[in-house]
């Protein structure tokens, strides 16, 4: 095989960084052959993106060399050829779209390469066909869903006919269906001979690749197959990552999966290997019944509809007669694919939008009443936006968090800020004067959460709080939220990550294309695979595992929806089997 990319003792220091600061990349060497399928993993801030940007000459090394097809990235005159060979799809789809019409954006690359009009036309047509966006060719990119935009971005790269494509956390912002779509396309392209390098911190995705590179604080800590990586528990934990559910299960219960020795990320072989339960049939643990059924409603939504940009040619129906109830004190989840209307619905709950049609009651506030105290409602129901770091408007962490207490004219602003930062685990003195844009992804989420908490809300509304976070930051955030819940702050939580939902909430409402399909206790919704798939979602691995166990006669209750709960019940059942 031919070497496509050669990285030789690459060290990189961000321009303007202080001398004593550790370099962003430290002495990295590896090669990628033509046709390889490589995953690049690491926690937020480990240098993945910086490394990727060296591979198509967006950045050039401080020392060492990067050769693409023999061309050194230090030579500016070779950059055009390097970028024609190595294309890149970025994390935020809207940042990489240049033109105002889909097909014109796809044509941007080939136009830069000075292809002839007829050639460009056929390249564009073909690229749009590969990503299935032919029908949307004349639409405006900013009106597409995130998943569709990401496909347009991919088409824009494909049209340049590159030999290698780098996917920079392309799936981080997508829902399960969108994610599967991108992953399948990567695999298809690789089968057609394209070299693929993709960045991710989802270990489940890693096993798609045949080779993994792991970055830990700027150093290349691992280069090998996914199976070898999954076996190296210490390294994974040290790098702030998580092993896939399948690998963790195999380690915890080797006797459950006879014949399977090596860990992979694929759950299916494990599920098939589960033996029939031979223990004594014992009564199923009783479902945790959630209090009396007549809890008061904290939130009541009836028949809510919403149209964006009503009365313009760009009008777009976002919510169609949505109804849902949230019981007081019961954490509630809102799930649905991207574009299903979750964010719009959540922004109604704190009065950013008032009902155009239908009615909403939140706690003591009736949003249909003409005298509703919107400001009071917004203090009552604090909102953390999706990608909250895009919503920061102050330069310093302290000011960002103090905005709420200041606006509500609290007497001791400093105390409120300190209290909120303390709750989310940010040290007041160490962080109050930091600049928001220089924090890591996980720290930025904490700031956003503290900013909402500083106004002492009764309800906390969270829109996709874990999207884009690495496993360690995600765990920290979820445990913060659990602690808050223990202290009496009720959470309303939207996510397309079903594992988050399983861990955090008791009841969920499923949204699909702007309508509310159904509101159910979590364990009921998660056992209905068809319905989840229909809404563009998927079952959490714990639930699939529990179902496979039940199918073979294991006494696992339906209320076990997290890996921990399932594991506890397996241990119980195994005890039953040994006491036989």
């Amino acid at each position, binding site marked *: 095989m031919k070497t496509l990319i050669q990285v030789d003792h690459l060290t990189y220091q961000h321009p303007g960084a202080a001398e004593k600061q550790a370099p962003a990349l430290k002495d990295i060497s590896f090669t990628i052959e033509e046709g390889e399928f490589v995953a690049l993993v690491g926690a937020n801030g480990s240098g993945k993106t910086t490394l990727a940007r060296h591979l198509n000459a*967006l950045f050039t090394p401080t020392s060492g060399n990067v050769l693409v097809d023999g061309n050194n990235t230090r030579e500016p005159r070779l950059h055009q050829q390097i970028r024609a060979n190595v294309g890149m799809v970025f994390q935020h789809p809207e940042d990489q779209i240049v033109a105002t019409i889909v097909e014109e954006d796809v044509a941007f690359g080939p136009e830069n390469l000075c292809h002839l009009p007829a050639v460009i036309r056929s390249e564009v047509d073909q690229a749009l066909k590969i990503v299935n966006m032919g029908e949307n060719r004349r639409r405006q990119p900013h009106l597409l869903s995130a998943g569709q935009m990401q496909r347009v971005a991919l088409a824009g790269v494909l049209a340049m006919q590159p030999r290698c494509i780098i996917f920079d956390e392309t799936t981080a912002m997508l829902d399960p269906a969108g994610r599967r779509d991108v992953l399948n396309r990567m695999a298809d392209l690789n089968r057609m001979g394209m070299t693929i390098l993709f960045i991710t911190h989802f270990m489940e995705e890693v096993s798609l690749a045949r080779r993994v590179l792991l970055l830990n604080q700027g150093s290349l800590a691992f280069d090998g197959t996914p199976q070898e990586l999954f076996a190296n528990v210490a390294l994974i934990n040290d790098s702030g990552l998580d092993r896939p559910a399948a690998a963790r299960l195999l380690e915890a219960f080797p006797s459950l999966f006879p014949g399977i020795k090596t860990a992979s990320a694929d759950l299916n072989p494990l599920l098939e290997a589960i033996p029939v339960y031979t223990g004594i049939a014992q009564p199923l643990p009783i479902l945790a019944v959630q209090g009396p059924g007549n809890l008061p409603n904290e939130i009541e939504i009836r028949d809510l509809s919403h149209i964006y940009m009503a009365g313009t040619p760009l009008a777009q129906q976002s919510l169609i007669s949505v109804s849902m109830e949230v019981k007081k004190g019961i954490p509630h989840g809102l799930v649905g694919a991207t574009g299903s209307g979750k964010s719009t619905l959540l922004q109604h709950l704190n009065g950013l939008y008032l009902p155009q049609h239908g009615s909403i009651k939140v706690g003591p506030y009736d949003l249909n009443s003409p005298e509703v105290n919107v400001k009071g409602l917004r203090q009552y129901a604090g909102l953390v936006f999706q990608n909250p770091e895009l919503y920061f408007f102050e330069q310093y962490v302290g000011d960002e968090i103090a905005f709420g207490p200041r606006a509500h004219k609290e007497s001791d602003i400093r105390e409120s800020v300190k209290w909120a930062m303390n709750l989310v685990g940010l040290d007041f003195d160490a962080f109050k004067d930091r600049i928001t844009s220089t924090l890591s992804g996980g720290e930025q989420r904490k700031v956003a959460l503290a900013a909402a908490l500083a106004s002492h809300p009764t309800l906390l509304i969270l829109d996709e709080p874990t999207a884009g976070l690495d496993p360690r930051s995600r765990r920290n955030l979820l445990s913060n939220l659990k602690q808050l819940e223990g202290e009496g702050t009720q959470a309303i939580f939207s996510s397309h990550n079903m594992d988050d939902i399983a861990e955090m909430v008791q009841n969920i409402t499923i949204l699909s294309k702007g309508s509310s399909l159904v509101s159910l206790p979590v364990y009921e919704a998660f056992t209905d695979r068809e319905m989840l798939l229909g809404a563009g979602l998927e079952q959490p691995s714990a639930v699939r595992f529990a179902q496979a166990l039940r199918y073979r006669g294991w006494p696992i209750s339906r209320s076990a929806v997290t890996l921990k709960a399932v594991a506890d019940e397996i241990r119980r059942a195994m005890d039953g089997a040994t006491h036989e």
Partner: protein
Amino acid sequence: MSEFEFLPSATIGQYIPTGSILHRIDPRAKLVGFGLLMLAITFSTSKIGIGVGLAAVILGVILSRVPLKYALKGLIPPLPFMIFIAILQFFFYPNPGTSILFILGPVVLSTAGILSGILIVLRFFTLILAISLMSFVTSTSELIQGLQKLLAPLNRLGIQTMDFVMVIQVTLKFIPFLAQSAERIAKAQASRGAEWGVKTRSLMTRVRQIIPLIIPLFTTSLRRAETMALAMDARAYGFKTNRTSMFEYKFSWRDGLFVLVLSATAAAILFI
């Protein structure tokens, strides 16, 4: 309409693909035609001329199949300025002439002043509508290709026209983005207690809440510009001075006719 929707008021720079006859005109023809029209509206001194211009632009909007009501919405944001300028003209018109209505010290209200005030407002309205109409029917990259072709002769004089053209393209692309950023910041501030979207507000609070939007708007725009530049670099932008285009434009009789009609209108606006 929600207070957080900044986009609909930005009708300028919004391309609306309805596939009308105006959409299919060669971009070079559109640039020349609309350019002449706008120049004529700017420099015309006659009331009838401006009237002709307004009529022509409204006819254009109807031909473009974009709802007239939507096009007119773009006139609302600059309305306060227009009224302000009109009032200045009413009272401080330098040549009041003979038909004076009343005098109070230096303030003179005259028929001529009122007419000139109305004329100025009409002129601005017609111009704004003309610019909106052009953006409704011309996609950014059409505009860019048109400009590039029209300016190409300058390349021979050693002037880098491509960068100039790209500056315009990116500026246009940033208009919806600015609206989106403003929406995000306003929402973030509102949900933490700023006065956005609260029903009872004085004019002063309305003005005051705009100010904290401005600096974050700058910083987010800069950050966004940086990522976009990176994405453009990644797609091999900036190596050749003459980019090619997916679209081949053939200047047909219809395009010629379009330029002729608009030149005639421009002449009418100037000389009637």
